[in-house]
């Protein structure tokens, strides 16, 4: 069960600001979903390997050959704020 404190922690981990109203709204729904997910506990997975990639592929590479980059203008074209060719982010602290 996820409590309010847990939700606040997860919200921080996910960088999702949650209002008090959000917390009220989400907690029961998240818990009912987790409750449903609890089904999988019943599956016997003793000795079963996790499947990360559905196809057994490995060793896919590219050669060390330069390809076209974006122009600075293209790179900045979607940035809401920029300055002197830099992308502008808020202060850190």
């Amino acid at each position: 069960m996820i409590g309010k404190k847990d939700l606040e922690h997860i919200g921080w981990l996910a960088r999702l600001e949650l209002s008090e109203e959000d917390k009220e709204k989400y907690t029961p729904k998240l818990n009912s979903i987790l409750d449903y997910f609890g089904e999988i506990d019943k599956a016997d997975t003793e000795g079963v390997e996790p499947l990360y990639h559905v196809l057994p592929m490995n060793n896919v590479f590219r050669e060390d050959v330069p390809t076209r980059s974006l122009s600075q203008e293209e790179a900045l074209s979607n940035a809401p704020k920029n300055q002197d060719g830099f992308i502008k982010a808020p202060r850190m602290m």
Partner: protein
Amino acid sequence: MYENPDGVMIGLEVHVQLNKLRTKVFCGCTTDYHNDPPNSHVCPVCLGLPGSLPVINKKAVEAAIKVGLALNCTIEEHTQFYRKNYYYPDLPKGFQITQYDFPISSGGYITIEGEDGEHRVGITRAHMEEDPGRLVHEGTIDKSKYTLIDYNRSGMALLEVVSDPDMRSPKEARRYLDKLRNILEYLDIFDGDLEGALRVDANISIMGGQRAEIKNISSHKGAERALLFEIVRQKNVLRRGGVVVQETRHFDEAREITLSMRSKEEAHDYRYFPEPDLVPLKISGWAPAIKAILPELPDARRLRFVEQYGITDDHAKALTSERKFAIFYEDVAKKVDPKMAAVWVCDVLKGELNYRDLPVEAFNKEHMLSVIYLLMNKKITEDGAVDIIRTLLDKGGTPDEVVKEKGLLKVEDDIVSTAAEEAIKENLQAVADYRAGKEKALNSLVGAVMKKTKGRADARTAREILLDKLG
């Protein structure tokens, strides 16, 4: 046996930029961005645009294997990339592609000159990851009103070399860094002179306390300073009866102190999981072929220099401690007397360069050869040779020009002979003293000869001629 009275244990995490590759680790953007405007070498992949996907640079993997082998590591049978989830504006995807379980190599060591002779520092692992972008703050990070981001660096191939906590003093840590850098340069995968090429995080603990992690160290000297400060700080805490807590500290390079960075952000939970956009690597099979073409490493070259050129181990060690110097020396040694070359390259040139804080590239190899030829042919004196080297470093030109300008050509033996005869005639008292057994009296005669030849005589030759004439 080194006592290590404070029980100092230092482990280093070194981020090495594989900056001799042509392209970044997961995209085809160039690594040659250092002098270019911000955000001018980026693409959908390294800018983290929605929908872009990474593809591994094969050469980066080969370079990582080279390093692993050079650090005596095992190249793992199965290796894989993971996502490390954390948020910072320099990280365009909101996660860093790195390695976690299954790094490409692990379990090696580096041998350094320790506090008590040869000392082995274990290498826990060396794994691949991508470099974040570069942040620019106005003033300091805590005062800046905004943050500027340049993603040109984003996606550069990094190798994180993690050591065991085997270093027992800041000096050993510095020697470890010097040695690591040297090995990386021998492998020709890394140029340590480029900005941001090598960045260090240090873990340090002393007896009776927990370890602190020091971040933001960008030079070898900085590492030594940061660790020295940290030992004093931790000892003071313990002496006052305090507790050294486990924490992350920031090295303030300007003030040479470390500062606690404790904040909410420190409660990290990176939620590592395998990068679904990259498939696993099975590349241990490449290791034998790469090992076969691995270049000669510093320790091996040092032994060979002693054997092949008959120089002292001290010379060999000093000459091989920097790849460029070793190459410079060897090119010279092949054409002249190698022992003489060792003296002039190692003892003289290296000292003059260090004094001026110049790299070996500042001195032309052909000029070194000319100077040694002049010496071998007895055209100049040893003092004259030193003078030429200094002048070339300070003012430029060629050895011939310097010789001509300064009149450094050694005078002929018969002129010295004439001068010696004159000196004997004019300094009868000194001659008498010498004959009476006062060896030192000879020095004043040599001085007189040097004066007459305006210092262009070779002092040793002058002495020999005087002795000859005095019977």
